[in-house]
């Protein structure tokens, strides 16, 4: 068996801390980040084919925002709820990776 003692770390499972080793997969796991509903992120890498809105536009729910070409399909990204376009971070022709913040929305000031 091993002759040198491995470097154990403290690992909490419910209320108790155990001395143990961590696996590489556990150490590399992604921390969960609460997604904001006002962030329109790309779920797949692809190329922006066209953008239909401008910054400052008030857009209704369901209206098309942009076309993302990925996996030989032209994916239509639609407005999730009626709001204003705060910022557009992409342009036509740009190739973007996954989880790129493409468009930022802001709530309409309530009338």
């Amino acid at each position, binding site marked *: *068996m*091993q002759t040198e003692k*491995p470097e*154990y770390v403290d*690992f909490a*499972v*419910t*209320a*108790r*801390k*155990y*001395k*143990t*080793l*961590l*696996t*590489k*997969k*556990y150490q590399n*796991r*992604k921390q*969960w980040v609460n997604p904001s509903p006002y962030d329109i992120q790309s779920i*797949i*890498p*692809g190329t922006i084919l066209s953008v239909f809105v401008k910054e400052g536009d008030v857009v209704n729910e369901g209206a098309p925002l942009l076309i993302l070409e*990925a*996996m030989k399909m032209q994916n239509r990204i639609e407005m999730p709820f009626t709001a204003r376009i705060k910022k557009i971070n992409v342009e036509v022709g740009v*190739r973007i*990776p996954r989880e790129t913040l493409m468009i930022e929305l802001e709530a309409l000031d309530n009338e």
Partner: protein
Amino acid sequence: MTLKKNILALRQKKAIVEKGGGDKAIEKQVAMGKMTARDRILALLDVDSFHEYDLFVEHEERNFGMASKELAGDGVITGTGTISGAPICIYAQDFTVMGGSLGLKHARKITKIMDHALRMKVPCIGINDSGGARIQEGISALAGYGEIFYRNTMSSGVIPQISVILGPCAGGAVYSPALTDFVFVVENISKMFITGPNVIETVLGEKISQEDLGGARVHAEITGNAHFYALSEMECFDQIKELISLIPHSNQQKAVSVEPKEPKSLKNIENIIPADPKQPYDVREVIHALTDDSKFLEIHELWAANIVIGFGRLNGETIGFVANQPMYLAGVLDCDASDKAARFILYCDAFNIPIVTLEDMPGYLPGVDQEHAGVIRHGAKMLYAYSEATVPKITVILRKAYGGGYIAMNSRHLGADFMFAWPGAEIAVMGPEGAANIIFRKEIMEAEDEDAMRQQKVQEYIEKFANPFVAASKGYIDAVIEPSETRELLLHALEVSKNKDDHRPAKKHGIPPF
């Protein structure tokens, strides 16, 4: 009239075809650090035991200039032989012949030998080393793959199927190893992925090397697609031979039994586990103290290290072991560990191998990533596998057995035949700290010194519940035993359950939480 001329002509023809893609192609193969397909078979099988079939099969494709191409054996060597005297069927793809690509006749050779293996009830070993489908043959190549996958499924649970990845195995081809029972990979040589780095870069723009995407280490450590990992082809063949010597060769036979031997580990079994439940130890040392000759063949050693599975012998017979590993992640159960254990339990059940479970786990791994990855669904697989198994099942609770994990690790309630616990076992619905916080919350909050009161209540809980006697008093465990008695009791339990006859309600099959 003798056949001398014919015999000489046959030998000449064989010599040419047996060279595969020719000397130059063989040189390239060796330069890549790989053995040739024929050498691999000869190294794995017993000396002079290999007999080849379908050596002279030729492809019938006429498109894309294939009419002029002569492909020796159509890129695959198939046949039968023995490993340690046990008959097996084997096929090895030949990378020197058009990159080992799979055409219809290539696939038919493989399915023919797979059909043989299923009918003759012998193990089937496939050595994969292929560039993928032969594009020139078009859909016929896909048809070939489909026929292979269907037979992999038909043979699943009837004969052991082993895949050895000794080269690229990409695209559709990689589903055959995924359907087999055990996958062997070798560092720097094995490559498994569905879409390769080139396609990924073109379509998605993500850059990654072949090794990082689907190299041997990735599959042994991260994806769990590989069961055994070796640093060289010869080491891999030794692992295969060891596995073949332990497993039954069909679901109608028991595994080969050997002369029983006493364990030879130097450590006294009582000294392996620390008394403090927060301190870790290597549960493999406990296994070594129990098995014959202290021999244990671990499966999936690098993946989901928080649980240990593998084969060892008790009284000369092959036994499957499932044990929590407190040395990694405190021995918790999580998605990967549940997957790993559940499939192994299914394998042991299919091939009539008794299962011994060694338990020491503090619960399930908490975390958003675990929950979102579906630890509920994956954890349920283990419950399903244990409940469904009708082989003799023996559990020894070494130390901690809290909450859902107590049930999942083959408790009496899931059908364990024998339940033993060591004197230091803590069988409770929760760890003492967590339980005391909940049950005595009022007392703790109303106390002057919260910490002192909490400590006192934890102590009370430990004395009252964190021991094996509560479960023993209810009959949920059969006996509280001394560690030194464990091996003897395991041998006795296995002796008693030799003719176990258990049935499940008639059904086509259940619906496990895949």
